[in-house]
């Protein structure tokens, strides 16, 4: 476990809402998010920012390398050290993790983390193709592959092993879309309004890759977010309600999900493996199989150890999962230790993860409803957690905002590929 040199906190987040299309281009969108941050942290002077940690995923989507340089210059921060972090869907949480390392180690005191993605310049099928080039292009991509299909196949396996149903996936979709209707920056609201949806709407939703329907899949977005992170000596200048980082864990897994049938890296977790149902014939493989997300499992263990979390279900007031497909959310209930392996379905059936439940998950509406411009994604939901722990959700989202009462501890997950890389960050307020 790393030695805690000093405490580090999130001091605020500025948002330019995600939407299917913006007239503004990426640098203008980031500038709007930065303006929003400056309004919330009026003391923040450019001189105080030691470095810029930029989060964006794709060079292909806008056919622009080194977009980070454009952003840094556009914000007038080009005299400072600047870095780009890129790890697929893991990019924005990785930017947070790396900024944390640099501040916690004492190298910098204040880091600005701008994140963005402009995903709709090319058609949806081409965006899917470009995103799928994060998969192994010699092996997984040529077989008609893209991430919807990969994740659908992973969920098919999990469903076969542990018996959740399409209805369970529908319940998660309904929960998240309805949560999203209470969020001020929701893309779902922008496109479809605030009317709640029901399971009937889910059953009418079109098939993408079985078992996933349109409502189970992340949306395509354009949007930006700027998060401010600082060491404890500086925090008070920027906010009265810092969100302290208490644990940071990162994990990785095989590049190709198909290689997880021989995944030696997680043999240590065999003791946790439930016995496979009798009807599942060979090949049976140990955790994570092609079903669960071991990278996030170890990331959570590492973060929990630093934060002193022993029972996440009880110790945490809410969680924001990076779940581009609803089966991922169900698997992560298990991988993050809210329940045992194979028991994820009970968490949604029994309402544990609903707003008002014991541990609400994705109160923000998250990736399938509220927005997923990759580089900004985990920054949006970190900002959302900042509002929650500060008790400001209603101030930010209006009287309908879903404030978790007395929220003190929260966590966020992020990952890329098919769980090839993942991270978990735990937060706590004073």
């Amino acid at each position: 476990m790393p030695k805690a040199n000093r405490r580090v906190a999130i001091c605020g987040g500025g948002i330019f809402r995600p939407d299917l299309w913006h007239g503004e281009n990426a640098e203008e969108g980031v500038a709007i998010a930065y303006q929003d941050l400056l309004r919330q942290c009026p003391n923040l002077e450019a001189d105080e920012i030691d470095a810029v940690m930029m989060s964006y995923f794709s060079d292909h989507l806008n056919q622009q390398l080194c977009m980070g340089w454009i952003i840094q210059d556009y914000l007038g921060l080009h005299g400072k050290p600047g870095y780009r972090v890129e790890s697929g869907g893991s990019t924005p949480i990785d930017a947070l993790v790396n900024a944390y390392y640099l501040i916690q180690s004492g190298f910098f005191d204040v880091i600005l983390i701008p994140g963005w993605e402009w995903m709709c310049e090319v058609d949806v099928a081409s965006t899917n193709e470009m995103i799928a080039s994060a998969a192994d292009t010699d092996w997984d991509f040529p077989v008609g592959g893209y991430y919807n299909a990969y994740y659908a196949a992973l969920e098919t396996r999990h469903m076969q092993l542990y018996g959740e149903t399409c209805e369970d996936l529908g319940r998660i979709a309904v929960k998240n879309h309805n949560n999203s209707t209470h969020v001020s920056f929701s893309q779902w609201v922008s496109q479809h309004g605030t009317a709640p949806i029901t399971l009937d709407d889910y059953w009418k939703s079109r098939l993408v890759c079985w078992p996933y329907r349109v409502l189970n899949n992340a949306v395509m977005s354009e949007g930006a977010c700027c998060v401010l992170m600082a060491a404890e000596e500086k925090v008070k200048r920027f906010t009265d309600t810092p969100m302290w980082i208490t644990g940071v864990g990162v994990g990785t897994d095989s590049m190709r999900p198909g290689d997880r049938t021989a995944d030696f890296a997680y043999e240590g977790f065999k003791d946790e493996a439930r016995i496979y149902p009798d009807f599942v014939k060979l090949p049976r493989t140990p955790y994570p199989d092609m079903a669960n997300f071991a990278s996030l499992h170890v990331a959570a263990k590492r973060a929990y150890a630093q934060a002193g979390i022993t029972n996440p279900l009880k110790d945490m007031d809410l969680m924001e999962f990076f779940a581009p497909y609803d089966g991922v959310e169900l698997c992560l209930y298990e991988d993050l230790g809210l329940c045992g392996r194979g028991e994820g379905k009970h968490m949604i059936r029994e309402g544990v993860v609903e707003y008002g439940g014991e541990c609400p998950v994705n109160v923000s509406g998250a990736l399938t409803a509220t927005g997923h411009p990759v580089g900004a994604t985990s920054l949006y939901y970190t900002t959302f957690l900042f509002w929650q722990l500060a008790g400001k959700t209603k101030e930010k989202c209006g009287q309908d905002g879903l404030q978790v009462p007395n929220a003190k501890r929260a966590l966020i997950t992020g990952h890329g590929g098919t769980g090839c890389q993942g991270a978990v960050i735990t937060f706590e307020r004073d």
Partner: protein
Amino acid sequence: MAEEKGLTETKLTVRQIKRGREKKYRDYPVVADNSTVAHELWEPIVHLGLWDIKGHQVVKGPWGGGTIEEAMRRPPKEFMVIDRASFAFYSHSYGLVSPFFRGLLEGKLMGTRCPKCGTVYCPPRAHCWKPECKVADCFENWIDLPLTGIIHTFTVQCLAAAPFEYMLPFSMGWVQVDGADTTLPTLLHIPPKEIFIGKKVKFEFVPEGKRKGDLMDLYAVAMVRGEKVPEWACLQRDPEAMEFVETSMKATLEFIKNRYGIDNGPEARGW
């Protein structure tokens, strides 16, 4: 129609550039040359004009931060949106696992075996990934694998990335080739109503002249025709799910017929 007018008048300029082959591989001999004319003439194929602006639109839309309601209350602004294309043509080496792909051309399925731990890789790895084997060379240990295996997991696609859209609807999955420890991404030429995890399959190859040297050269079919689907199978045990998949596939077939003029129906495809 406006689009047709744009196309026929001035918008699409295909540059016919003839040029010699770039010297890409130093002085190493090309011992087999199965490249096509695209190797020299790729540019018009890929680019239809490098970075040329093919036209533009002006879109009047909301702007600025805050909520969508706040943005919509502002007088809209006009955004100029240009259309431009750019990509490249890659000559990519399959590296030390090239024998696998040359094997596909010959209708063979091969894997590598680690000389130290004995793990059989298909997809092959040129070097073992197990730390105790210290990146052992596996690329001299090729083994012929049987053309049989077991479906480890699968999906049925009614939407696809751009290059594969014309094939819709189709199923893909991961098949563990008999004798291998890892699983191979595979197209499944099996009707969804017969696909289940644990099903035995055999590999077949596309006709010899049509093989290109990637995983599209082969596909899996049922080992036993008309095999009974077990009652626990996750797709078929839910009759509504199965019916939904069938309906969705029919709609997808229509979509592909309209967009590409291709009939991917079972009669036309033969599976």
